[in-house]
C-alpha cells in the first residue's frame, strides 16, 4: 500500500534524524587504552615528547590536534564551550586570554595539586589561578623579550654590530627611537622596527594597568595608555615603522626584503623569524630590552570539564609541563620554560642558535626573564580591548584615519564590547 509505505518512509527518516542527536562517543576503546587528545596552536615543540610518552605507556595514548594560530584555536574553543561538547581532553590557551577563561567558572577543571607547588614562576602561577584560589591551567612557556636585529644593516648604517654593544644602544625607549632615527637616515627605505602593532604590544607589556583597573573596571583613558598610543602613532610619521600589519603576507615578505632592522623578540618569536627570514644572513639576538624587561605571551594547558577522560588528561598535562619535558620543548622550538627549575639545566644554559650568529639564546632568555619586573594587570576583557587597540593603530599606520579620529573610534569600539 502506497499510503502506508510512504508514511513509514517519513517516519523512518524522522527517527533517523532524531537518533543522530545523541551519539556520545566514549573514548575508552575495546583494548583498554585511553586516548587523551591535546589541542595546541603555533609550535609547542611537543611532537618528540608525545612520541616518548606513547612508546612507554600502554594504558594512555596522547594524540595532538594542531591548528595554525591562536585565532583559529579560540574560535574553536568558544564554539565548543557554547555547545557543551567537542573539545579536546586538554586545550592549550594563549596567556592573554587566560583572564577571560578564568571568568568562565565551571567550564574547566580545577588542576590544583599541592605536589606541584613551586613548579612555576609565581606570577605565571598567579595568571592561571582564579578568584577561588583554584589553578585552572598548567603553564607551558613564557615570552621574555630581547631584541632581534640585522647586524648587516647595522653595519651599513655605521652602527656597532656586536651584540654587547648593540645592547648598550637601547637601554631605554628614548635611546631605542633615537638610534632608529639615526638608522633610517643612513639606510633610507628600511624601517627601524617590524610593525607598530608589535611595538605597541611590547610597550603595553610594561604598563601596570593598560586597559583595566585591578577591580576589572575598564579604563582606557589613562595617561599611560595614551602615552603608548601617542609614541607609537608618532613614530609612524617619522618613518620608524614598516606600516605593516603583524602576521600579514606583506609583513612575512618584509623579512626577505630588508624591510626593517630590529624587532621585539620573545623566545617563541625566534623560530618565527628563522622561518620567515630563511636564507637571509646577518640576524642576531641582543640581551637587552628597552625600558627594562618585558614578557610577551606564554600559554597554558587546561582540562575542559566537558571531557570524558579528565583524570588521564590531568596526568598528561602535569607530565607535559614538568621542567624536564619543557626543556626538551625548548630544544625543539625555543619555547622558553615557565619553570624556574629548568633555568639551571645545562641544556638551557648552553643553548645557542646558529641562525642568530650562534647567539647564546638560552642564557640571554634566562637573563631577560629575570629582568621582568612589571606584570601588566589583565582582566577578562584584556584580549578583546587589545584587538581594538591594535586595529586603532593599524588605521593610523595604513593612512585611513588620523591618530585623533582613530582614538575616538577605539573608544567607541571598547564601549561596544558591553
Amino acid at each position, binding site marked *: *500500500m*502506497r*499510503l502506508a509505505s*510512504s*508514511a513509514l*518512509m*517519513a517516519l523512518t*527518516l*524522522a527517527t533517523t*534524524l532524531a537518533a543522530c542527536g545523541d551519539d556520545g562517543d566514549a573514548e575508552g576503546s575495546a583494548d583498554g587504552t585511553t586516548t587523551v587528545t591535546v589541542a595546541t596552536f603555533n609550535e609547542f615543540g611537543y611532537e618528540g615528547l608525545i612520541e616518548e610518552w606513547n612508546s612507554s605507556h600502554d594504558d594512555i595514548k596522547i594524540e595532538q590536534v594542531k591548528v595554525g594560530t591562536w*585565532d583559529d584555536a579560540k*574560535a574553536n574553543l*568558544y*564554539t565548543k*564551550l*557554547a555547545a557543551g561538547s567537542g573539545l579536546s581532553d586538554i586545550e592549550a590557551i594563549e596567556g592573554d586570554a587566560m583572564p577571560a577563561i578564568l571568568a*568562565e567558572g565551571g*567550564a574547566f577543571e580545577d588542576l590544583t595539586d599541592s605536589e606541584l607547588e613551586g613548579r612555576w614562576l609565581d606570577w605565571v602561577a598567579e595568571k592561571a589561578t582564579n578568584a577561588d584560589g583554584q589553578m585552572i591551567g598548567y603553564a607551558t612557556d613564557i615570552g621574555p623579550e630581547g631584541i632581534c636585529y640585522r647586524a648587516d644593516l647595522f653595519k651599513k648604517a655605521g652602527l656597532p654590530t656586536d651584540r654587547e654593544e648593540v645592547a648598550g644602544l637601547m637601554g631605554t625607549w628614548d635611546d631605542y627611537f633615537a638610534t632608529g632615527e639615526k638608522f633610517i637616515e643612513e639606510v633610507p627605505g628600511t624601517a627601524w622596527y617590524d610593525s607598530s*602593532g608589535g611595538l605597541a604590544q611590547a610597550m603595553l607589556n610594561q604598563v601596570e594597568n593598560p586597559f583595566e583597573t585591578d577591580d576589572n573596571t575598564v579604563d582606557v583613558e589613562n595617561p599611560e595608555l595614551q602615552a603608548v598610543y601617542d609614541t607609537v602613532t608618532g613614530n609612524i610619521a617619522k618613518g620608524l615603522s614598516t606600516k*605593516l*600589519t*603583524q*602576521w*600579514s*603576507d*606583506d609583513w612575512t*615578505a*618584509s623579512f626577505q*626584503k630588508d624591510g626593517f632592522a630590529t624587532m621585539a623578540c620573545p623566545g617563541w618569536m625566534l623560530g618565527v623569524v628563522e622561518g620567515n627570514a630563511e636564507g637571509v644572513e646577518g640576524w642576531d639576538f641582543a640581551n637587552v630590552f628597552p625600558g627594562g624587561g618585558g614578557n610577551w605571551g606564554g600559554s597554558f594547558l587546561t582540562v575542559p570539564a566537558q571531557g570524558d577522560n579528565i583524570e588521564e588528561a590531568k596526568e598528561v598535562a602535569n607530565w607535559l609541563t614538568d621542567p624536564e619535558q619543557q626543556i626538551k620543548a625548548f630544544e625543539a622550538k625555543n619555547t622558553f620554560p615557565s619553570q624556574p627549575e629548568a633555568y639551571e639545566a645545562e641544556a638551557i644554559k648552553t643553548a645557542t642558535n646558529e641562525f642568530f650568529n650562534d647567539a647564546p639564546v638560552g642564557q640571554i632568555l634566562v637573563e631577560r626573564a629575570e629582568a621582568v619586573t612589571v606584570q601588566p594587570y589583565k582582566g577578562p576583557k584584556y584580549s*578583546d580591548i587589545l*584587538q*581594538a587597540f*591594535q*586595529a586603532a593603530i*593599524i*588605521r593610523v*599606520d*595604513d*593612512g*585611513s*584615519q588620523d591618530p585623533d579620529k582613530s582614538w575616538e*573610534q577605539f573608544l*567607541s569600539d571598547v564601549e*561596544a*564590547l*558591553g
Partner: protein
Amino acid sequence: MPQDLKPSGGDTRTVSPPLPPPATAGPPRSAWRQRLNRLDVRLSPYLYISPFFVLFLLVGMFPLAYTAWVSVHDWSLIGGKGDFVGLENFREVLDNPYFGKQLVNTVSIFLLSSGPQVVIAVTLAALLDTHLRARTWWRMSILLPFVVSPVAVAIIFGSLYGDRYGLINELIGHLGISPIQWHTDRFASHVAIASMVNWRWTGYNALIFLAAMQAVPRDLYESASIDGAGRVRQFFSITLPMIRPTMVFVIITSTIGGLQIFAEPRLFDQTATHSGGSDRQFGTITMLVYDFGWQLRDLGRASATAWLLFLVICAFAIVNYLLIRRLGALGEES
C-alpha cells in the same frame, strides 16, 4: 540514445489494457476500499514530498525561529540565555555605525561580483556552445577554479593583492603607477574581493548557461541563418530569450550567495580581528554576525543581525521577482 517509445513499425498489434477483476465483495467493503483509494490518491503525494518538509522544518525553519527567539534575549555565547530584552538587540545593531557601513560594503561587493559574473558567464557559455576541438576539455577546465577551496583562493589572491610586496603592485610599479592600497582603499578592496568571487563562480555559472543553451532547438538557428541573421544577432534574438528561465535561476542564487559573502573577505583581512580591514573597509554583514557572536560573544546581537540580513535578502528577492516579471511581460509583448 533515449529509448524510442513508439512501437516499432512491424508490430501493429494493439494490446488492450487488462480488465479490472470483477467485484466479488459486497457493497460495504467496496465503498470502504473506494474511500481508502481516494484518500490514497489525495494524500500520497503529500507524504511522498513530506521527507523534504520534515527535513526543512528541522534544519531550516527551526534555526530560523530559534534565532528569532535568541535575538530578543540577552544571550552570551558561553553563559547562555539571559533576560528577555525585546527589540533592544535590534536597536543596538541598527545604532551600531558598522552596521550601515557593512551593509553598503555587502551590496557593493555583491554588485561588483554578480554583474560581471553573469555577463562573462553567458559570453563564455556562448563561446563553448560552438564546434570547438576538444570540447569537453575546454568545458571542464572552466570549472577548475570552482574545485579550489576558498582558503587556497584567499592565499593565492592574498599574494596578488599585497599592499607592498604584492604581485600586482610590483607589476604596476614598473609602469610607474603608484601602488594601490588593496586592504585600505574601500573601493579597491571591494574590487579585489569581487575578483576572487568571480574567479571561483564564473565557470560554474557558465556551465549552467551552457546546459541551457544546448537545449535550444538547433533548427531555430538554421532558419535564422537562412534569414540572414549573423551570429551576434542570433545570440541576442534567439539564445538570450530562450535561456531566460536559467538566467532567473542564476541571478537569484547569486543574489543569495552574494549577500551572504563571508569566507573571501574574512580571509582577505590580515589583522588579528579579521573583521574586514582596520576600518571595516570590506567587512560584510555576515562578518558582523560573526563579530558579534564570536568576538564579542553576544549571540543576542548576532542573531538580531542575522535576522536583519534575512530581511534584506527578502527585500532583494522581491525586487528581483518584480524586475523579472516585468522583463517577462516585455518578452511576451515583443
